[in-house]
């Protein structure tokens, strides 16, 4: 088992026929991901990469039974694409798009409050359940089916963690890239809750960065509810205050969103915090051996 996506998911690609959408849809299909079709308004009726193209998400739900969508729509239209998916009844919406205006996301987030769905991202690498479904832009080959869940706000740093976990002889249950924007659909805490409840996940790697309070919120929840070891890292220990470090959400505003403050809270909540990002895999292996019971 796993969380969010697996071999039985019925996945569509929004922005299917665009450059990004086509390239990554091709990679996903090659990985064996159950892609059932795609949506590009105005191109309904076509076939693309051997899959049907539909005009609306609602049609994709009706005709293809789609329950999961991955979005490659440009930032200008991405907020609208998320709402379309939610309205159509898609249960897991994964938005890869980087650069969506914050005020668009404020509205989208409020719109989703009354909908029965989960948004992952935006500005994220996606989700992968190794060996079953790659719903994102991550390189599939570094992953290995296994029992470690990984949560991260970044792309390549997630791959780094995955690679270390794989090299430590472990594998991944599901890796969730929650995204680097100030407003994301699923928070660190919510992603931790999903993996904590997953019977096929034995340990969790939680990678955060400067800005916001998501890691602290997750840590406090972990302190009270953890049943599995959690290894944590916060990127940006050397980042200056008030500067955006690449990700729109990676900015130190006050004293609570520095890496130091977050790591301190995480440590006090029983998380195995690593100061060096090179020690993620080895620390997870150690933690599992000790089988820390909270």
């Amino acid at each position, binding site marked *: 088992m796993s969380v969010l996506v697996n071999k039985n998911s019925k996945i569509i690609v929004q922005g299917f026929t665009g450059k990004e959408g086509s390239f990554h849809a091709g990679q996903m299909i090659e990985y064996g991901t159950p892609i059932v079709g795609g949506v590009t308004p105005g191109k309904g009726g076509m076939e693309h990469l051997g899959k049907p193209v539909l005009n609306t998400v609602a049609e994709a739900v009706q005709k293809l039974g789609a329950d999961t969508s991955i979005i490659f729509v440009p930032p200008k239209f991405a907020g609208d694409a998320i709402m379309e998916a939610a309205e159509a009844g898609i249960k897991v919406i994964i938005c890869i798009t980087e650069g969506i205006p*914050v005020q668009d996301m404020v509205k989208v987030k409020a719109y989703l409050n009354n909908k029965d769905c989960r948004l992952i991202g935006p500005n994220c690498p996606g989700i992968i359940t190794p060996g079953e479904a790659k719903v994102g832009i991550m390189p599939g080959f570094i992953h290995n089916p296994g029992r470690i869940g990984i949560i991260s706000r970044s792309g390549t740093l997630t791959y780094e963690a995955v690679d270390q976990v794989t090299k430590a002889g472990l594998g991944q249950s599901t890796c969730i890239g929650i995204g680097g924007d100030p407003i994301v659909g699923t928070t660190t805490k919510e992603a931790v809750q999903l993996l904590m409840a997953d019977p096929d996940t034995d340990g969790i790697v939680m990678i955060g960065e400067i800005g916001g309070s998501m890691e602290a919120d997750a840590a406090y929840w972990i302190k009270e509810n953890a049943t599995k070891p959690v290894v944590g890292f916060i990127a940006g220990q050397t980042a200056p205050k008030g500067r955006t470090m690449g990700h729109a959400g990676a900015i130190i505003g006050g004293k609570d969103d520095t890496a130091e403050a977050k790591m301190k809270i995480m440590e006090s909540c029983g998380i195995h915090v690593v100061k060096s990002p090179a020690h993620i895999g080895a620390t997870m292996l150690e933690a599992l051996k000790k089988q820390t019971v909270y």
Partner: protein
Amino acid sequence: MNLHEYQGKELLKSYGVAIQNGIVAETVEQAVEAFKTLQEETGTKFGVVKAQIHAGGRGKGGGVKLAKNMDELKEHAGNILGMMLKTPQTPGGLDGPGKLVRKVLIGEDVYAPDFDACKEFYISVLMDRERKQNVIVYSTEGGMDIEEVAEKTPHLVKKEYIDPMLGMQPFQMRKIAFNLGLSGKAFKEMAKFIASLYKAFVGADASMFEINPALRTGDDRIVAVDCKVSLDDNALFRHPDLAAQRDTDEEDPTEVEAKSYGLNFVNLDGNVGCMVNGAGLAMATMDIIKLSGGEPANFLDVGGTADAARVEQAFRIILRDPNVKAILINIFGGIVRCDRVAQGVVDAYKNMGNINVPIIVRLQGTNADIAKKIIDESGLEVRSAILLQEAADLVKKVVAN
């Protein structure tokens, strides 16, 4: 992207927010003309000369002066224009080099005729990440450092959250005006001020408005005396008029240049440069440098397409900093193939000829082995690594020398 005070005020005015009137000037002559015009149009007796730089605390550094007549105005404008203004927020703080003042705003005296009858407030609008809603933060303690007010007297800083679907409601405007202790005409004016301010915030896709102070004048008007405006870079496509107001003079020239190449670069004070794909991994790489005994000289995300041309531009930018004693390149190849990046590094190195700082290249992911071979067989002074820990060890060795 940040706006200057004079640009921010124009923006606010266009949404009906009452502002302290003013005219921007780049020379003393223009300042004199501006003061004359302002006196005719507003009837103001005194004028305020305000340095226009992207930093707060300008008054503390001598960048804001009251002129009681034309002679004083000339003197202040002459002193402030061209000065290196140091404030707690300019690079290096009050001990740093300061920022060159290229423009001044000549403003009317809104405190006249009775300074003591005026009252200063603090009002800001921003997006609250935890609540995922816009919020208006306000206080009766205007004209002061709000972080200090919040620390010492948290009960004096109040927040009003705005429903994303419904927008600001009239009862919320009334609540804010009442909580600021206003009544009568000033109360109504404040409610109007708040409504227009919020409209401007959403309309311009701002990420922060800070009005400090907002003034209740002697005749019960509410006026924005100062304003800090930050806009959401991701929304500038909707606001070409605002995007055109970007003042690159206020930004680090190297960062501006890097941006034109599609590189995301932030200049720092350290001695080890770095070049990384992805923002999270870039921050983590800076952390590795620090843990290995160095200090990061920069943040640099080369993005998804790290080809030879881009690697070379990144090299040139990093090497421009004379403090750089070593460079760590850390690429996790996913879609990007490591062998291509490696070839890019080798080509750039050869093209540039005279690189005389040690370079450590760590390539991991797609075709990492081929990449290592390309680096190792290039005959260049480049050390290669595959594991992050190996790269960290190499940095440690280089920094120790």
